[in-house]
């Protein structure tokens, strides 16, 4: 589904991504692990269009997407979340979600002024959908709260909720478990599994090895800007090169 070929990205002489090739198969929850500075988040930024790669290709669903702007990539139904949750602070939880659906007529001024009926109807549907998502994610009681007032864990859930609103074919999750307590983490894992069961592919960066080993198959290990190895949790655990990479040998 997502194919990366010979990707290169340089930052002021430092090779953040170097000759990186990998593939994510449809329907999987693929894990992306590796020591700090291995280039995982940079890879996400390249896939989601925040940076343009220096060289190489990124293919999604048989289409080449490298170099496209972020909003174009989203419209290919590939969505990402951020390592530190980036909720829209001075907007309510509900607004955070209702922003997501694509192709809203009311998002153009002409629609607002000349198609009020249609916009109203779409808003009603979007709101209904957002409420469903909030029910599912169990944040419904906070729907009118400013997003900045949520706890760290709730913000992570809000990020997941946003991806559900978008209903993309593939989701890039950047450290969904960071700063989340055990109870919430279990809920997060359950949610991801449920969404995956509906046919959404995941690629997720995570440092919590328990979470990765339980949730992900296959797991891709990155080191020094490229793929080191790939395999099931069991294979990764027993691969001596992975340990070497983490120890910096």
């Amino acid at each position, binding site marked *: 589904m997502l194919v990366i070929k010979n990707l290169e990205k340089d930052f*002021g002489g430092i090779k953040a991504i170097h000759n990186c090739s990998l593939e994510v198969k449809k329907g999987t929850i693929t894990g992306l692990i590796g020591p700090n500075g291995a280039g995982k988040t940079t890879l996400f930024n390249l896939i989601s*269009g*925040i*940076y*343009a790669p220096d060289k190489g290709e990124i293919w999604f669903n048989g289409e080449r997407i490298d170099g496209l*702007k*972020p909003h174009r990539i989203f419209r290919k139904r590939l969505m990402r979340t951020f390592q530190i949750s980036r909720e829209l602070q001075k907007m309510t939880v509900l607004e955070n979600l209702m922003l997501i659906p694509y192709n809203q007529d009311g998002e153009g001024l002409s629609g607002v002024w000349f198609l009020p009926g249609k916009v109203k109807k779409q808003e009603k549907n979007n709101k209904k959908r957002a409420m469903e998502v909030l029910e599912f994610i169990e944040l419904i009681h906070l729907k009118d709260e400013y997003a900045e007032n949520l706890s760290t864990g709730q913000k992570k859930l809000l990020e997941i909720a946003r991806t559900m609103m978008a209903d993309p074919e593939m989701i890039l999750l950047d450290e969904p478990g960071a700063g989340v307590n055990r109870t919430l983490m279990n809920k997060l894992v359950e949610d991801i599994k449920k969404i995956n069961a509906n046919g959404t592919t995941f690629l997720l960066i995570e440092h919590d090895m328990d979470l990765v080993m339980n949730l992900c198959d296959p797991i891709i290990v990155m080191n020094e800007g490229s793929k080191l190895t790939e395999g099931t949790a069991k294979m990764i655990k027993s691969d001596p090169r992975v340990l070497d990479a983490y120890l910096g040998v």
Partner: protein
Amino acid sequence: MPQLIINGIIMGSIIVLGSIGLTLTYGILNFANFAHGDIMAAGAYLCLFFLGLNVPFVVAVILSMCITAGLGILIDWCIYRKLREKTSVVLLIASIGAALFLRNVVQLIFGPQLVYYSSEIQMAKKLPFGIRIKPDEIFIIAASFLLIIAVHLFLKRSRIGKAMRALSDNMQLAGVIGIETEKIIFWTWGLGCALAAAGGIFLGLEVQLRPMMGWDVLLPIFAAVILGGIGSPYGAMAGGMIIGISQEVSTAFINPAYKSVVSFMILILVLLIKPSGIFGKKERLA
């Protein structure tokens, strides 16, 4: 034309002195300080004050530089420091307030009229290629050159200078290495504002003093900073010279009143062609 280039070098020296401080605070604190021009003006008027006490000129310059450095640190301490958590734009608004405050305090004390440091008329020296240059102008070029060398040595050799460059290059990186950020910010204001004072004094020497003088150089110093790449002191030096010379040379073709429009045009061109400036890092934002 050679005369215009010499004039450009004089203006360029002044712009360079102003833009080093601006680029460092821009790079380190990540905000465009619109008060920097008025800091220059404040320095120039402080010098006028000391000259009024019959202090020798060079001593007056040094005193003004020290006090202006303190002034910059004081403004940071009273206002900017408390807003650092907010977005860079809130700091920007605060700096506009500070700019107008400084300018009008100057006007309140010294009045709105034009003033000169000295009423004596200087004879220009004649040089080859029909260049004429006044002793004051030789002083401006020489003193600016010395100051720039001093800044260079400071940035390359001293621990604080090195940390300053690292910080303005990459705030996060510096945090990882363990640089005491607040101390560096303190020194950055001090250094930047002292240089700005020198720039302001030289501007007063070359043209004249008026409360609006800081406003007149604001666009040129911003153009120099952006041309050189935000956060790069060496870029600011090159950018300042380019802006200074282009402004003066342009007067051969268009109305001299449009000098700051010329620097603005250069600024827009840079933004269109290479927004990161000559020495800046390549960075793409969504």
